[in-house]
């Protein structure tokens, strides 16, 4: 899942928003419809999406810089919201529960989806 090579977000953005739909990279569950997220460039580290088996690496975090900003949780088509930890809640796929695919505030309003951790479907 951790993919260190640089990737270009420009083709994924149109009018500052997500051009295509956002789906789970693992199970393809629809997370966000086109145009429902705003591109935000911010430096935020999120815990790794490791499987339970690789528990040794559980504390590791990955720095991320490209996010879809979503104004509240009800804007998502399908999403899971974790319990709070240290002032943050984390976003998961609603179906397979892989995550964190992003984070949100305690009031469930401002959400940030890590663009690298989801599948961005842009048809040409």
């Amino acid at each position, binding site marked *: 899942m951790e993919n260190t090579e640089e990737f270009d977000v420009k083709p994924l953005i149109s009018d500052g928003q997500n051009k295509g739909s956002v789906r789970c990279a693992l199970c393809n569950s629809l997370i966000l419809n086109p145009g429902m997220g705003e591109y935000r460039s911010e430096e935020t580290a999120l815990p790794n999406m490791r*499987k339970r088996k690789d528990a040794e690496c559980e504390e590791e975090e990955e720095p991320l810089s490209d996010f879809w900003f979503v104004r509240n949780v009800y804007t998502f088509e399908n999403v899971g919201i974790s319990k709070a930890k240290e002032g943050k809640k984390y976003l998961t796929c609603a179906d397979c529960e892989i995550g964190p695919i992003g984070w949100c505030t305690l009031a469930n309003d401002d959400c940030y989806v890590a663009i690298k951790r989801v599948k961005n479907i842009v048809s040409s």
Partner: protein
Amino acid sequence: MAKKSYDFLFKLLIIGDSGVGKTSILFRFSDDAFNTTFISTIGIDFKIKTIELRGKKIKLQIWDTAGQERFHTITTSYYRGAMGILLVYDISDMKSFENVMKWTRNINEHANEDVERMILGNKCDKESERMVTKEMGEQIAREHGIRFMETSAKTNINIEKAFTDLASAILDKTVGREAMDTSTRIDINRKTEERLNRCC
């Protein structure tokens, strides 16, 4: 203002004894392959799922209650705002079925009077270990005037249908209520329009 991306938002609660499969019902089973350490450690608060019913886009906000919680600790605050409740038992666990009565009483005591309820007999794939017959489930549901179906989170039987049927019942109720409110609503709409016209 941002455009609203749905027609209705329904809050649903899943309750029932520990181990009956409440969390599994909200999870697309798949060999436990993706269960990530971090998320499973902190736990999931709720999920948003979107369905379409009769041309309406409906967002379901689904709350899974924690295992250790017992009926006597689940009180009014827990049920606040819930429009639908899925009451789950395990067909291979008689105790969990017997407790359906207690859960029902708890709902009657604490939940909103007109909350839509549905009883689910889960793990119906475990036919060889079945302790609770389907008729017993139907019987208790009939006595309480509650919808009922058997489900399997593991083999994905009736899971979608449980959510759709419950949402559909809530939709019927909501739309019925809206129709009654139409007269007042038109008034409000008109006022809003006037205000909008003025400011633009």
